[in-house]
């Protein structure tokens, strides 16, 4: 799987999670033709998310990490909660 495919799959699983509003800025994967904001795939995977308030953040982060790890190919997954959506 190429880095581009990994980044796009990670973006898809993050956006599919009900607590994720959008991916946060800060870094991005620059792919041919597009970029995936909030996802970085190098020797580690980094994701930045903006969450919906309500649920405990550590729980949500554990779920996100588990979901992302399936596509991360054994790389550690760093999760940054960049912001909460305004209620």
């Amino acid at each position, binding site marked *: 799987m190429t880095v581009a495919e990994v980044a796009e799959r990670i973006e898809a699983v993050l956006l599919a999670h009900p607590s994720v509003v959008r991916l946060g800025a800060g870094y991005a994967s620059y792919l041919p033709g597009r970029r995936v904001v909030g996802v970085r795939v190098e020797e580690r995977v980094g994701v930045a998310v903006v969450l919906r*308030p309500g649920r*405990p*953040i*550590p729980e949500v982060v554990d779920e996100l990490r588990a979901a992302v790890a399936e596509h991360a190919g054994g790389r*550690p997954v760093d999760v940054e*909660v960049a*912001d*909460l959506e*305004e209620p």
Partner: protein
Amino acid sequence: MANTPSTKPETSTSPARLADDTAQGKTTIASSVVQKVAGIAAREISGVHALGGGVSRAFGALRERIPGAGTSATSGVTVEVGEKQAAIDLDIVVEYGAGIVDLARAVRRNVITSVERITGLEVIEVNIAVNDIHLPDEDGEGAEESNPSRVE
């Protein structure tokens, strides 16, 4: 991933699950997240009219239009966030009639509970400054009711 549960004890007494740098990766929570959670929790308490000092309220409308300057949800809330702990300073405006000592205690309790539950950080202190007291007709609310026509 099979060993995830064993490496993360789910005890409520250890809020130090944050920023844990394990083989699976580390977690960081931006300080604006803690600010928003604390601001929402403080506003939930009845008797809190608004958050923010005189200056931050005066410029609140302007600040919301400046990218990165914070929003109304974070006005009046200052946080210091470490890897496992957070310290929170609140500037609040209370409603006239509220007992300030009891109100401050309730705000502090709700902020600590919410921030610890939602972010998992241990809150070491919540400093509350009561900047102003809001009088019922200060904003012109109820101006009509207070000057009803005396004759029909």
